[in-house]
Each structure stands twice: as C-alpha cells, then as structure tokens.
C-alpha cells in the first residue's frame, strides 16, 4: 500500500514538476560550506551530541558527523546546525 502511494507520489512529481521534498516528504538539507546545515522537513531529532546529529526522516534517518555542534535554531521540522561538518550519511530503517 505504501509502495503504491510512493509510486503515485513520484509519478505526480514527474508530471507536475513539483518540488520533491513536498510530495515525497523527504528532508531538504541545505549546507553552507561545511559550517552550516539547514535541515527542513525532518521527522524528529533522535540524537544530538557534540560530534553527531541524527535526525529521523521518511523511511530512515540522516546522520551528520563533525565537531563542536550547536543547534543554532530549532522550530518544528526545521533545524539549523552549526559546527564543522565532516560527513552526511543517509541510512534506511532496514540497516538498524
């Protein structure tokens, strides 16, 4: 059922040229060099440490690693992360 929904969603997106994060509920991560990362459309904060940030997204989670992390701003579904970012990795639920 959910697979069907996703397929319809991607079809809609292709035909109407809609922004993918809206139709597919995917996170949008904007980065300014390696010092800032805006994460929008996430589904919740899982872990936040000095060197790691884990955010739940649709069908998995995003892990950002780096140093001296500070959450400059938190509003619902939006996070502004500040620090030295080394890597951004995507993980699906199955890996866990």
């Amino acid at each position, binding site marked *: 059922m959910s697979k069907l929904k996703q397929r319809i969603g991607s079809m809609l997106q292709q035909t109407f040229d809609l922004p993918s994060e809206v139709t597919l509920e995917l996170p949008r991560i904007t980065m300014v060099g390696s010092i800032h990362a805006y994460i929008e459309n996430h589904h919740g904060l899982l872990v936040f440490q000095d060197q790691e940030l884990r955010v739940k997204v649709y069908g998995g989670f995003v892990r950002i690693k780096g140093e001296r992390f500070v959450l400059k701003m938190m*509003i619902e579904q*939006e996070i502004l992360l500040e620090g030295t970012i080394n890597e951004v990795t995507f993980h699906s639920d199955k890996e866990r």
Partner: protein
Amino acid sequence: MFYKRQNWFKGSCTIQVKGDFPERFFDFCVRKGIQVWNVRRQNQTTCQGTIYVSDLSQIRRLKRETIYKIRLQKGQGFPFLVKATLRQKPLMIGSILAVLFIFILSNIVWKIEIEGLNEDLERKVTKQLESYGVYEGNFQWSLESPGVLQRKLLEDIPELLWVGISKTGVSYHLEGVEKTIVEESENTPASHLVAEKEGVVVDLYVEKGQPLVKQNDTVHVNERLISGILGEEEEMEEKDSDNPPVAAEGEVIAKVWYRSEVAIPLRDSYGVLTGDSENKYYVHASNKLFPIWNFRNPDYHDYQIEVEERSFYFLKWKLPFSFVKQTVYQKEKIEVDRTSKTAKTLALQQSRRKLRQEIGVDGEIIDEKILHEKEENGKVKITLYYTVEEDIVKRQPISQGD
C-alpha cells in the same frame, strides 16, 4: 530561510536539561511549538538550550510529562536588564532625585528682565513685583499668571503706561512703557467752540474769542458759540492777517433737558454672596479632576464657583497635570416685594444715577419732573423730565482752507 533573529526585548533564558537523551526534551518542546535555540550538548546526560521567558510556564508543564530535570541558568534581554537596574538602589535613588531636582528647579523663577524703563522706575517695578512674589528664587506655582500680574502692575504703578509680561520657561521678561505726561500744548490750533447739545444759554464766560450767543438764546447742536475769529468774518476770508484766528476758550452754561424712562419691577429677586466660602483642591489630569483636599461638598443650596489653575513645568515643557483650587461661595437668593411707593423712589434714584453719569460732576440738576407714571405687568414705569445746567461747549478746529 527560517532563521530569525531573536527578539531581545522579549527576554530569553537558558535552561539546562538533565537525563538520558536530554536533546529529546528539546525535540519535544519544538513539537509543542516552543522555539529553541543555541542548543549545546555538555556531556552525556546534560544539554542546554535557550528559550523565551514567556514560554517558561509551558516548559514547566511539559516537564511534568517527562522524566527530565530542568534547571534555569540565566536570563538575557531587556526584562532582565531592567530588573538588574532596578536592583541597583543607589542608581535608582540617584535618578529619582535627579528628576525631582530638575522638576523643582524648573518651577523656580530664575531670571527677571526688565526692558524699556529708566532706572528709577525699574527699581520701583522690581519692588512691586517682589511684593507679588515675583523675585529670583521663588517658586512659580505660588504666582499669578502674567496677565494678572500685568494688570496689577498697571494699577499699582501709575507711572506705567503699558507693561507686557511674558514668561519663557524659568524667566520673566518685562517690557514697559513709561507714561510721559504730555503738557497740554499752549498753542492749540485755532478753533471755534460749538454746542454739543441743544439748550438755552444761561451763562457765558469767554476767555478768548468772540461770543456769538447771548443769554437766553436757544442753541442747536453744532451751532457756533464762541468764534475763534476776531472781528468780522468777512475780514478773515480776505486773508487779512491783522487778526489771525485764535483758539477760542470759554464756558457756556446752558439749560439742557433730558428725558428718561425707568421701569422697576414690584417683585424682584437677585443673588447675593453670603460671605461663606469653602476651598477645594484638585489635581487636574487628562480632563478629569481628582480631589486631593476637602472632599466633602459644602451643603450650600445655591453657590458660585471660582476656579484658579496652576500648571507645573519640567524643563520647558508643561506637565499634563495641574493644580486646581476651587472656591465655592455660598449664594443666597433674595426676593423683594416692593410697594409702588418704594419702587418709585428707587426708579428716581436709578434714573438720577444714570443722568449723573451722562452729565459728569460739573453739571447741576435743577429740576426733576415726573411726566408719566403707570403700573402694569407688575412693574412701575416712570417717565421723567430733567432740567440740567451744564457746560455744552465742544471744540471745532477752523479749517485753514487749503
């Protein structure tokens, strides 16, 4: 871009969260719509973040639903700055004193400038002003308004022709004009004396000029009584400079008749102040009067109120409140019932007084005759006829014929 600058005026505070996965508490807050910023992980079990002070009560409520321990750390922003300033007693006392001081100083007379008067008169004015309380160093709120001072000065110093008092902030500025007593110039231009009123000549005193009327002559208004031209009139027209025209001087006493009508009501009522009065004090602010002294209303049935208002100043600005003194005078209504006889005597007195105003002190009332007397609509109406002897001359310049 969602990043917004935090509102400094709202005031924010830093909280510390203790427990397993403390960052999840902030996530929880964010889901409830609370804005959080500057979140920092301190160690495995503690995390700190900043929120608005106004959200604190909501945080407390959320805390009860979770197992986290929350500690308030410090506040920033305007409300905390105000609080910190208020806590500094000497600073507060100092600033209050300073404002009070400025307020008191702005209500003191600092300078009195007098302009346009000679030294002697200036000293007199200064002394007079001092008696009204206008001297350097006195408080302004006990003084009368410049308009009243102006009138009083003019009354009390007869040498002053005019004085203007203007008040700018803490200084009074006076501008005076001295009365110069103009001596009647000896050479008034050549003129005749003519009749001001109609009448019968009784007496003539001619100092200068040629009389044109005799005793028992009837004269009309503007008839020439004493001519400024000596000799024959025709001579004058021939421009004979033997007898140049002079300013006629003299008095012509004539019998003049006046008619006057007076009506006196038989039943009359008028208000009289009994002399009883009471003072009430108010502070006047934003069009409302707030009583500050003497709250009770005097139980006068009929009264008259006199209001005196004084305003306060801060530097040069007029403060929006003022001090009002009300004096309530008791009034009494007096009703009189007159008989027609007393009404008649009153009417006579009244008309005589009126006549006296018209003829001045030199005139003489010779005869008084009641022409007509009737009573109707509760009034006594009297028509009187007076015979008066008075000086009727009026100066009329001789046109030199351009």
